């Protein structure tokens, strides 16, 4: 069978979701953000909730998320997305509200907003892309940077003595009664990406229950910040990030696993 016979429209089994715009993604080649964006938009499209979804974009590499996601979005000040989302969810209780944040946004400047939105059990989804570095500003150390990991502000490696230990926000928020679903995923292989999509879908489905925050961490590579090729970065992530940030469900249906 010729390739031309196969690639007929009726045979198509996968293409980019129409909920992503035509704007080329500004992310570095191989960056997990692109996959995370697409999975989220695929979920919203498949659930048929485009008209009722409002996203909150952060400051960080994904500050321009609203250029790529074809839904109504509000850009938030650095770290404040959970507060912004809290207000939207409370004044529009029927809408599907989510934040999409990086590690600086959620675990540094936004720690208070993250903890308190989770503590209050807001009816929102928080998608947390953790690549252990500040990409947008050129590769500085993040609260989630691993011990010994080099960055532009930890050029000799993260030193616990002076810089503290990497922060496990996901485990922290799982302790709060206000979180209903807490999980850690990744998107670097087809298996992981499919699982992550299921997790994101679960998170959005949970919004119908109004039982608290659904918190989905996506551990990702940052090949530019880590100064590796995308595939090498993914391997490094598996070898180094996953042992410290283990994948899997941490809290389901309000109960710790």
């Amino acid at each position, binding site marked *: 069978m010729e*390739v031309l016979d196969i690639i007929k429209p009726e045979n198509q089994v996968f293409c980019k979701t129409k909920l992503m715009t035509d704007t080329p993604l500004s*992310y570095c080649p*191989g960056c997990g953000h*692109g996959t995370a964006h*697409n999975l989220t938009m695929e979920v919203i499209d498949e659930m048929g909730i485009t008209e009722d979804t409002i996203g909150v974009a952060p400051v960080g590499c994904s500050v321009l998320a609203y250029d790529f996601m074809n839904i109504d979005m509000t850009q938030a000040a650095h770290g404040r997305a959970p507060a912004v989302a809290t207000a939207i969810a409370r004044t529009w209780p029927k809408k599907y509200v989510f934040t999409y944040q990086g590690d600086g946004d959620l675990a540094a400047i936004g720690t208070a907003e993250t903890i308190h939105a989770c503590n209050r059990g807001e009816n929102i989804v928080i998608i947390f892309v953790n690549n252990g570095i500040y990409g947008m500003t050129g590769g500085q150390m993040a609260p989630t940077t691993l011990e010994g990991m080099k960055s532009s502000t930890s050029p000799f490696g993260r030193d616990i003595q002076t810089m503290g230990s990497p922060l496990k926000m996901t485990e922290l928020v799982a302790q709060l009664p206000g979180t209903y679903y807490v999980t850690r995923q990744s998107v670097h292989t087809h298996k992981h990406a499919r699982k992550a999509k299921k997790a994101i879908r679960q998170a959005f489905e949970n919004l119908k229950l109004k039982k608290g925050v659904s918190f989905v961490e996506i551990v990702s590579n940052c090949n530019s910040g880590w100064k590796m*090729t*995308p595939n090498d970065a*993914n391997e490094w992530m598996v070898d180094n990030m996953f042992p410290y940030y283990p994948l899997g469900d941490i809290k389901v249906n309000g109960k710790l696993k």
Partner: protein
Amino acid sequence: MAKVKGAIVVDTETCKGCEVCMPVCQDNVISMSKEVNRKGYHYAYMENPEACTGCTNCAIVCPDRAISVYRVKVSA
């Protein structure tokens, strides 16, 4: 049992040559071209198109969704 035959179409201008699609292809279909697109990236292409089963593994990991996947059943 019916076999499947697949094929991918790569949007060569969108592809950033990140190669993340290669390790997940279980049939060694994909390789990076010697040519570059307008942005200077070596884009992905089917080096071994006969081996493609249209499993969509490559498409689902592609951060830029540069890959569309097609699949047909063929009688054995």
